[in-house]
């Protein structure tokens, strides 16, 4: 479990995160980070990834030295930034191997190559292992980077909008894989999402962030209510119960003010 106390971040002279007090779900669960554009979601994720200076404290049982490692990613943490770097001619398996970049020497031990291939196989990507990244589809690329992140054998996995560039089928596939790996590896996954219905279905814990402050946090089923979400996005939202038993959020047509 990840515990944030009085976490504040200033960027270019402006306070972006204001004294956040947040607790995540336990290991093996997914915590979802929701909020409108510019509310500080990515900033929070980058802070957790050790990229930004902060005040306050971040605590995690598996990563006691979180606070002493400004500027680099903590050892037991994997972070998947939004998709970029897709023009590379590196093969999928080379990209996955880079997950271990800090311990790669001139010669790559057979055991590490094996591990990279297995990682790809686990995500059903064996067929494209030797293909260059630039020739893969968006969904395949995202899963290759997921495999790369898993090479770090993290206990905390940070994902920044992992499905935002994907079509429906690949969204479901990537989310299902994230859920499966989170359970199997007993990781704590923290994920920024824009899709409310996906967040409701795949996360156990939820943080709602508004203008750098916590609007609400807690178990997903309790926090993700039409009332709170309407307030969060400043737009009226309704919900009905869908076939799968979960709520389905929607907002109807809206006229612009005259």
């Amino acid at each position, binding site marked *: 479990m990840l515990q944030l106390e009085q976490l504040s971040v200033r960027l270019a002279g402006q306070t972006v995160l204001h004294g956040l007090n947040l607790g995540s779900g336990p290991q093996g669960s997914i915590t979802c980070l929701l909020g409108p554009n510019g509310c500080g979601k990515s900033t929070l994720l980058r802070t957790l*990834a050790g*990229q930004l200076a902060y005040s306050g404290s971040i605590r995690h049982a598996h990563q006691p030295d979180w606070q002493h490692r400004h*500027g*680099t*990613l903590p*050892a037991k943490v*994997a*972070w*998947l*930034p939004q998709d*970029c*770097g897709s*023009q*590379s*001619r*590196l093969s999928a398996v*080379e*990209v996955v191997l*880079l*997950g271990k*970049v*800090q311990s*790669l020497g*001139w010669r790559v031990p057979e055991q590490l190559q094996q591990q990279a291939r297995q990682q790809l196989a686990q995500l059903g990507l064996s067929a494209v292992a030797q293909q*260059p990244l*630039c*020739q893969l589809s968006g969904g395949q690329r995202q899963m290759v*980077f997921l495999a*790369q*992140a898993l090479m*770090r054998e993290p206990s905390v996995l940070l994902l920044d909008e992992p499905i935002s560039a994907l079509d429906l089928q690949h969204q479901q596939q990537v989310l299902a894989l994230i859920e499966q790996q989170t359970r199997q590896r007993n990781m704590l996954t923290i994920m920024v999402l824009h899709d409310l219905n996906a967040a409701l279905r795949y996360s156990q814990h939820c943080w709602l962030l508004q203008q750098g402050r916590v609007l609400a946090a807690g178990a997903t089923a309790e926090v993700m209510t039409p009332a709170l979400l309407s307030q969060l996005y400043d737009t009226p939202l309704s919900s009905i119960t869908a076939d799968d038993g979960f709520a389905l959020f929607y907002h109807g047509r809206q006229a612009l003010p005259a």
Partner: protein
Amino acid sequence: MSTLTLALAGRWQSRLGRSGLLLLAALLLTGSLLLDIASGPAQLSIAQVLHSLLQGEGGDGVIVWQIRLPVALMALAVGAALGVSGLIMQTVLHNPLASSYTLGISAGAGFGAALFIVAGSSLGLAEAWGLPLCALGFAFVAGSAVLLIGRHRGGNAESYVLAGIALLFLFQALLSLLQYLAAPDALAQIVFWLFGSLYKSGWHAVGLMWLTLLLACGVLARDAWRFTALSLSDERAASLGIAVARLRWRALALVSLLTGVAVAFVGTIGFVGLIAPHMARMLLGEDHRLLIPGAALSGALLLSLASVLGKWLSPGGLIPIGIVTALIGLPFFLLLILRSKGGQ
């Protein structure tokens, strides 16, 4: 990257293997080296060259050992240094048009050297180490300025290149000012030296250049995997636990070292540093364990061939090599610009 390039690279790789390609380059390089030693006002045959190399300094041996060999070895080392610095700059600044020549580091070193030619003697410094030191110092100034200005402007691929171009103009302007102010003999020295010429190379300089090259490449090679990771993007590299800003500083410091020393000994030589990395990338892919030696080999090969070509074009006149590389390199540079607009 265009499909054609991919297909081409793929075919070459599968036929020879990547290490086979490196070996082939090394063979070509040996050939070019022998050709370079053989060419000149007194044309020698390859057999004569081999004979002299094995027999020592009798007969043709004086020409080979005293004049041709140091120049030919200097061409290899400087070409390799420029090739590697171009590769590293293109990787860490994420721009295919980056090189120490296009982004003002060569110009900075050139200004430093010219400053020494004009003002060094009045300071009572010896040229043997004063000039290289001055060139090196200004190469570092230019390298740091590219990073500082580029980062201030947002740290993306474009901002570093704009910073580099601004520096290029600045140092060229300062250089013009120096030339305007310089006494006639100092002016002639600056101009000749700015064209880039391998003929100032004694064994002492050759040794220093090779030492710098091997040292810098050794240090760069330790970061080979990190450079490969950085070729994805800054954020991806950071997401793999790499301290990107620190890696970039380390890389630019070594690039400045390589460029500064090369400029100090042979003057400014353009386009090799731009083209060699692209040749290596096309054939070898993105793995920097192969790319670093690959860029070094192609840079060395390019400059060595340019040296041969210069001698063939004007057997007695010895056209400055900087002019040869610029004439060959410019069309390639244009091709790169045209392709990067349409191809990506």
